[in-house]
């Protein structure tokens, strides 16, 4: 009996926890771009490609083409 009561209490608690946000004000999901993350993602990719530049696996003009493309993609 104690187990049943405890389970029922837990169920009620978990449901209240899940439904609680519905009692707040309606607001839209923000559509903002995490600008720092976008730049970081581009910078990370470019940094990895710069390793290849030193190891002669990419030419400078190709790196520039890829960098431009990544930057264009990040603002699209």
């Amino acid at each position, binding site marked *: 009996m104690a*187990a*049943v009561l*405890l*389970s*029922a209490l*837990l*169920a009620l608690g*978990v*449901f209240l*926890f*899940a*439904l*609680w*946000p*519905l009692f*707040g004000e*309606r*607001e*839209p*999901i*923000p*559509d903002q*771009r*995490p600008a720092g*993350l*976008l730049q*970081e*993602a581009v910078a*990370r*990719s470019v*940094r*990895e*490609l710069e*390793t*290849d530049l*030193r*190891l*002669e*696996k*990419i*030419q400078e003009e*190709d*790196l520039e*083409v*890829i960098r431009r*493309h*990544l930057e264009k*993609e*990040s603002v*699209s």
Partner: protein
Amino acid sequence: MGTVGTYALFTALALALWGTAASLGAYRTGDLRLLRSAARSIHGITVLASLAVLALWGGLLRDDFTLKYVWEYSRTTQPLVYKLSALWGGMSGSLLFWCTLLAVFSSLAVTLNRRNNLKLLPFTSFLLLLSLLFFLVVLVFKTSPFEPLYDGNGVALRDYPPQALAQVEGNGLNPLLQNVYMAIHPPMLYLGYVGFAIPFAFILGALAHRERNTFWMRSARNWAMFSWLALGIGILLGGYWAYIELGWGGYWAWDPVENASFLPWVTGTAFLHSFLMQEKRGIYRFWNVFFILATFLLCIYGTFLTRSGILQSVHAFGQEDPSIPWYFQLGTLFVAFMAGMLVLGVALILRRKELLESGQRLESAGSREGLFLYANLLLGLMALIVLFGVTSPIFYRMATGKELSHGPEFYNPRILPVALAVLLVMGLASVAPWRRGGWEAYRKHLLFPSMAGASALFASVAVFLSGGPALRADFSARPLTYGYLLACVALSFFVAAILVEEYARSVRAARRAGRSFLLALLHPFRENPRRYGGYLVHLGVVCLFLGVAFSGTFQREYQESMRVGDAVRFGPYTVRLASLGHDDLDADLRKVNQARVWADLQVFRGDRFVSLLRPQRVFYAANPQQPTYEVAIHSRLMEDFYTVLAGFSLEEGTVVLGAYVNPMVAWLWLGGLFVLAGGLTALVPMRRW
């Protein structure tokens, strides 16, 4: 315990229903309140599913035989570790474990992405909640681990008086699963299977939310990398378990359930590489959606094959009651879920196909981008071959009513050429330049590796030609096998040389930049952990190729009857049966869980004593008619001497000893360590150590 578990699962199911509806509502209306409610539903399911797991573990630890699951998979004398691992020893327990892991991972993914990737979360949460809903429906309505046990008269054991209940003993865990590696192998596989659900949900989420940007990729890639690593290590642990527990001298038999775990690993490998191209160049978007969808569905398919009992396998342990109507059979439910997810994925691909166009063309077929495309095609082909091998027996049986199973004779001739091509592409892709190909681009990077590959080839041929008449006769009898072996040796040295040279160039560059020797050795891993972690993984794959090639080609098998005191030759080894021992075999197995018979062997190579081995047979209370094998192995880097007690007579003091000389099996486990080290390195964020 049963009541708590049942209520927890019911509540989790109701919460999953609400969460699925709320996340879909959030996707359609963009209401943040609904999204928050869906996320909290996932957290709630995590708490409830974990509670159900604790309840089942509680039942197993307390020998609560009023629960059918506990009675089927545990017994009072079962060691603690196997009482705990009985959680995934049966169908409903393992589905509960799957569901709980999925809930935990979903909670983590939602929490970690609540700031940076909030925009993607409505549809991502919807897919995760839909998957949770499926598993909870199965657990609540189809196969609950908290089902009560009834006796032959239809009386529930929970209604027994305590004295009568104390007399009840459980069946016990399948003896083959009472092995420490089997206690680790399934959770590792499940970490992989379940983990792939997260990148799957994120990628389809990005598609549904029309997100072309790549900022969310880091999170998805890390989940995919973690899952791929766990699945790979899980597969290797399964191979090691088969090697030491089944007593047949091998580690991989193209068994359907083995293949079922191999399939998502292959497509997951393709996904990880192809995804890199999307991150760097914005290309192969379609391939990535295709591969992650395939990987997720194959993870579900693997679980389905293991649990449904639809295929005969040493690993399958689910058997459906034939009296259950077809539409309520577990197999039907799994097929319906997979079909639903497939339709959803394909519909999204079709509706968002403009997002999957990169707007870029492949500049050169010999470029790095081109080689990654070949890798996609080859790995896709490999997955198709294995999928056909696993699935065709099911359709064959449906059509003819007869059994069919594919073994090494089906897979080896089809997979080996593809695998060797993958090895070649793996090496070339490491040195291939971006955006351009051509001989000039490769020439300076391939001189040393080509010399290494050619030298290895010539040396191998010379060894075979000078290896005596027996080796030459074997060479003539199996030219294709030796052809594959030579190709594998040459390509392995070629790829290993590429990897070593690439690493050495990076170290030299660091030295030129003024770093000390020690720091220069670490610099490549610090500067670009993904790249050099990947190279470590590739080195592990080379070790795996060599281990498989040599152990598969040169395994030698022996079997001899011996009397105590006899010394018998097994290839290069001489074995003396020093003694034959045993536990008290008349003891009540119900009280001791197991009893052993063993042979003490002195092993010599030439005149030199090398090892004392003790192969055993173990009689488990769970199945005393079929004693399991505990093999004994003298393991060295270049060769294993593997012994198995095939038969014995305690009265006559005789044994039948099986023995295998297995070359280079240790290279598989060494390769696994490289894969683990490389995978962990690749997961480390750049410049964080």
